[in-house]
């Protein structure tokens, strides 16, 4: 069984540029999570979906960040105008129906904003 895949693995931007991250969850997993992990900190939940619906995006900076999962499978996280404070690893995770306690993580995308 393939794991959670993410792309790109690395991104380097100038402040003000836009970037998109892609996540392909494990096949059949209905719940998908996006986390932000700054250097030397634990992951912090940004948003999570069940199928195509956003369940909680209260920690997503809505002025510059957006996330979609239009068909309930793959997902895209976008930063419209990146800031240096967005430098972090962005992790995607998925879990099967009714088992949200068991989350499987992808390898992450490391973002550096100069």
């Amino acid at each position: 069984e393939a794991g959670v895949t993410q792309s790109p693995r690395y991104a380097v931007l100038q402040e003000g540029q836009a970037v998109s991250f892609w996540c392909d969850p494990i096949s059949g997993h209905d719940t998908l999570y996006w986390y932000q992990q700054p250097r030397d900190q634990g992951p912090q939940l940004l948003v999570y979906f069940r199928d195509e619906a956003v369940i909680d995006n209260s920690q997503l900076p809505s002025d510059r960040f957006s996330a979609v999962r239009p068909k309930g499978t793959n997902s895209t996280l976008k930063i419209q105008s990146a800031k240096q404070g967005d430098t972090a690893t962005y992790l995607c995770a998925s879990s099967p129906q009714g088992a949200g306690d068991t989350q499987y993580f992808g390898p992450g995308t490391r973002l550096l904003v100069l």
Partner: protein
Amino acid sequence: GQQVQQSPASLVLQEGENAELQCNFSSTATQLQWFYQSPGGSLVSLLSNPSGTKHTGRLTSTTVTKERRSSLHISSSQTTDSGTYLCATNTGNYKYVFGAGTRLKVIA
């Protein structure tokens, strides 16, 4: 909201020594997991232990729910154990709150 504190922040061991990692959380947790994060960044779940004691391989986790704390004991450490150990809790939904982690380095 829920806060999770881990100690020590970092730890250096000689191969073969044991490690004791601590996790304290501010609110009663219905679920608690220990994760390992490799230097390359991937997270892997090690143990799910909301209460009591659980063993897997060289790992033992003890969670005392009333005292809102959990520990992870690694016996006979190996160089391949090097990495970051993260504690995460949730309070009845699917939203995990992570601690900052303990960075373990095991030297030969």
